[in-house]
């Protein structure tokens, strides 16, 4: 093995090949990442905690598997895990003080499958508290910094995971996406991030935010890497009744290109309010590149886009207010003592929940309370139907939908924290995919003049991850724009 620093810039595919050639060992690969983390994470703050005992054991096991000739693509690949995914014995807190000290008694299915595939866990990444936010500034611990500009946010809620991959601190990071929490930080950090179809990946062991919207997905530095990780996680799990038993065909026609595919550009997304000129320019160039690669670009319309945010900010808080009722200081996490149980609940939740979580619990309980249920929750569910129908109609005219992932590039830390609605607007192009259960991917599509990454979002019909991946892959190949490690040293 020659130069340790290069090991942290490889893709999974390249690393797997070099591990087989014995250019380096899995132990050396994980050590290179640990050293880079040691050097850089004081500034990036992508991680909340590290798992050295686990990575030593898993890297040793990976080296044994490689010695036996195991050709699995994830054997020995270093991975970071968002702080909402339970790993047995590893403190998991959902970015919240209310779960400080919680060590799950089991490992969630997505993580177990990646462990079984040979991935090596580096540690737990930072996120907005209970995945509620678009900047990772709502973490109960500390904000994370964007590796491309440390004064800016990495996006959120899976900002620690996106930043870890962008900084070369991990080859894979897992995130979760409820309204854009994988795709938006992937765009802002210049990496690939994918949200699968609702039901593609088991949610067992995911600390729930909004159960009808949450999905687990990967961050990587290439589209192919994202496909490899998704392929290893996906598939039916008896422990999640909403997981699908459809065949796992996410890699079908991966390299088939876009020739003959119809790509829809929704005018409501293309001209979304607040879209920055630099983002628009990058998207225009991406559309041009895809057209030149043989795709037919068609105009489509998603007429209820203007109502999506409003529906989302009823449905998601309603589900969260119900899911977060379990944090009462009785079975796990923070507990504030009191004279009676009601006071204990209130003091525990007062101390343990941050501002955004409290705001959403209030909004959710209000929307669900009798007298307001019809006006808010039921209405939002009906709008969800309309949004799903919008997508169904659009997909009659096209095979996939393309747009910017986020209307803006990474914004300065602190610039949106005082105005919750301005933060919610970060997800205006992504949350429709969650309401309709669609697979979506964000792939880097260049930089603005300020050298900040822009993401191209590809949405496909339900269960057509293969189409989203194929389009993203074709864009990556034809444009030559590659997700890379940010120039931070």
């Amino acid at each position, binding site marked *: 093995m020659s130069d340790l620093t290069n090991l942290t810039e490889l893709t999974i595919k390249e690393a797997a090949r070099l591990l087989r050639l014995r250019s380096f060992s899995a132990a050396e690969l994980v050590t290179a990442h640990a050293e880079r983390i040691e050097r850089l994470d004081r500034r990036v703050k992508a991680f909340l905690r590290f798992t050295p005992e686990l990575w030593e054991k898993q890297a040793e096991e990976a080296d044994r598997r490689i010695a036996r000739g195991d050709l699995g693509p994830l054997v020995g690949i270093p991975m970071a895990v968002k702080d909402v995914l339970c790993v047995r014995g590893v403190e998991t807190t959902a970015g919240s003080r209310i779960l400080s*000290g*919680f*060590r799950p*008694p089991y490992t969630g299915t997505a993580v177990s499958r990646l462990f079984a595939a040979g991935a090596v866990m580096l540690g737990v990444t930072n996120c907005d508290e209970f995945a509620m936010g678009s900047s990772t500034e709502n973490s109960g611990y500390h904000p994370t910094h964007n590796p491309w500009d440390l004064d800016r946010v990495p996006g959120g809620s899976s900002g620690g995971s996106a930043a870890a991959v962008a900084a070369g601190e991990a080859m894979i990071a897992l995130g979760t996406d409820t309204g854009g929490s994988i795709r938006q930080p992937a765009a802002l950090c210049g990496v690939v991030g994918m949200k699968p179809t*609702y*039901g593609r990946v088991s949610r067992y062991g995911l600390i729930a935010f909004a159960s*009808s919207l949450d999905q687990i997905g990967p961050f990587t530095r290439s589209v192919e890497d994202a496909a490899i990780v998704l392929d290893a996680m996906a598939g039916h799990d008896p422990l999640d*009744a*909403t997981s*699908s038993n459809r065949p796992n065909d996410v890699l079908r026609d991966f390299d088939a290109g876009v020739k003959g595919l119809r790509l829809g550009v929704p005018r409501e997304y293309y001209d979304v309010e607040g879209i920055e000129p630099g983002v628009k320019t990058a998207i225009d160039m991406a559309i041009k590149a895809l057209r030149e690669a043989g795709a037919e670009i068609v105009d489509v319309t998603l007429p209820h886009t*203007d*109502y999506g945010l*409003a529906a989302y*900010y*009823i449905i998601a808080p309603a589900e969260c207010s119900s899911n977060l009722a379990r944090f*009462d*200081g*009785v*079975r*796990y*996490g*923070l*507990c504030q003592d*009191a*004279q*009676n*149980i*009601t006071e*204990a*609940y*209130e*003091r525990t*939740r*007062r101390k343990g*929940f941050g501002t955004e979580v*409290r*705001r959403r*619990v*209030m*909004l959710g*309980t*209000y929307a669900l*309370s009798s007298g307001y249920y019809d006006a*808010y929750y*039921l*209405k939002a*569910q*009906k*709008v*969800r*139907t*309309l949004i799903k129908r919008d997508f169904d109609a659009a997909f009659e005219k096209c095979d996939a939908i393309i747009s910017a992932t986020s209307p803006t590039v990474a914004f300065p830390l602190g610039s949106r924290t005082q*105005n*919750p*609605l301005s933060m*919610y607007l970060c997800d205006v192009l992504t949350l429709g995919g969650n*309401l*309709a*259960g669609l697979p979506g991917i964000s792939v880097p599509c260049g930089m603005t003049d300020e050298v900040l990454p822009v993401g191209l979002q590809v949405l496909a019909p*339900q269960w057509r991850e293969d189409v989203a991946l194929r389009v993203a892959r074709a864009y990556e190949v034809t444009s030559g724009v590659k997700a890379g490690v940010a120039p931070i040293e």
Partner: protein
Amino acid sequence: MLARLALEPGDEEFYAEQLSGILVHIDRLQQLDIDAIPPTAQVVEVANTLREDVPRPGLDQADALANAPAAVDGFFRVPSIQEET
């Protein structure tokens, strides 16, 4: 009350102002005439997934109690739930 969030002095004004701004945005839903539209609670086709009714191991008691802030005799310990009479 429902949410058990224990607001403190100053909280009410802080959240009232922010939540009103959000509710103003949300109120655009009232413009839509959607009485005839069915609601959507979940978007995929799976429904009523059942499994064979066979016993399987669950969490054992020690694991279930391992994270408890307070446990006694194999139970979670909580403050009194009823006023003494």
